[in-house]
């Protein structure tokens, strides 16, 4: 990817703007198609973002997490 992935909010705002201008109409087909494709890609990003937030629930004692990270470091330097 050449561009930085937009945040959820950036993607959502751009998508709103795209849909609004598509709804206004008055663009040629090529432009419309381009916007539609961009909109669809942004929607995909938004949907992916929602799923990306699903995950584990860790409740860790401070010491345990410290040890875990240390062990991870040791492994990484091996």
């Amino acid at each position, binding site marked *: 990817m050449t561009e930085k992935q937009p945040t959820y909010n950036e993607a959502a705002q751009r998508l709103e703007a795209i*849909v609004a201008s598509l709804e206004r109409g008055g663009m040629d087909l090529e432009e*419309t198609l381009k916007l539609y494709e961009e909109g*669809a890609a942004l929607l995909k990003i938004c949907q992916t973002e929602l799923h990306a*937030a699903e*995950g584990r629930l*860790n409740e*860790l004692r*401070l010491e345990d997490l410290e040890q875990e990270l240390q062990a*991870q470091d040791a492994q990484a330097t091996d």
Partner: protein
Amino acid sequence: MTGRGEVTTGPLAVGQFVSMVKRTLVREPLFQRQTIKGEVSQWKQYPSGHTYFTLRDDEGQISAVIWKGRCQIHPSIKEGSEVVVTANLDLYVKRGNIQLNVERIEPINALGAMEEARRQLIERLRLEGELDRPRQRPPFSPKHILIITGAGSAALSDMQQLIENRWPGLRRTVIEVLVQGQRATEEIVRAMALSRRLANPVIASQRGEPPVDLIIVGRGGGSPEDLWAFNLEPVVRAILASPIPVVSAVGHESDLLVSDLVADVRASTPSNAIERCVPIRAELEQWQDEIHERLNHAMLRTFGDARQRLIGLHARLKVAPLAGINAGRRSILTLHSNLNRAVEARFSKERTRIAGLEAALVSIHPKRVLERGYAMTQSEQGEVITKAGMLNVGQAYTLHFVDGTAQAAVTEIHAEEENT
């Protein structure tokens, strides 16, 4: 030692008696977890780690002991300090001494001193510009929240509940720390140091999770002293140093801590932190469904319009050339008939002329001349002899008369003088 049977029949052994007294004393709720104020005297800290002193005022006094590690002792406490202790009454059977087992000891002037330190810290931060620093924006939809708070606290379970309501299954890591007492500061700072690592994409991916993108550090309500760790410089500096947004969520609405002043987001309570940082997933999904439909609809409409236009154009296209051809055909027909007329006119003129020519031709036909008594002479080669000079003596010529021909031979030629 006396046997069991003698307890009821003879005098009590003193040890037994003192033990009975102790049992009665420690059962009395008024004597347990009581808050008592007084002046410290005979303050002695032993190498064993235990501290002994007498708590006294003008009316009375009592021995007190702080067992090693039982509570933090403010360094300002010394002989003569006014203190407030929270303690349980106990009786040391071997000596028959009543004493206080101290659970907590605070110098009475400490709050004043702490307030002063807090004021100075805020002033320093103001001079450094930290209070007006640009804040980091929390992610609109966090993917991995780190919560730093007390283990098993009400604040934690409130936050967990609220997260589940708003975004079921949202990925989160809770680091359980002490949130009050002197060790709280150190633990919160250590947890913040760990957060830095959990926010590191490389380390996070090694752990198989997305990096932490939001930190909520806080605790539920309590006395000003309970919340005090969040007024201390190490915690404040740790928040300032965080590469990812930090929400300060300490105490109740009315509590304003220094951590609140420097954090990227100040939440009034831990629950408020969740309300402000965790969107309601169902609402986002609904928005996505709606915008999806609007996107498709707008697209289809634009293309539908274009298609209609195209169909219209196509229909016109189908008709248009025919109209042209018809017009062309009409004009060609006109041209054609015009041409015909012109040709006709031309021919009839020619015809008249040719008729005239014919008449003229007829009038000058040799036969007509012959009819008038002339004869035409022709050589054997078919040449018409028009002058005497063309004749040769001895040659035969054909004479054409109106009713036949005759062969003649030239015997003499008398050519007239000719002026040429």
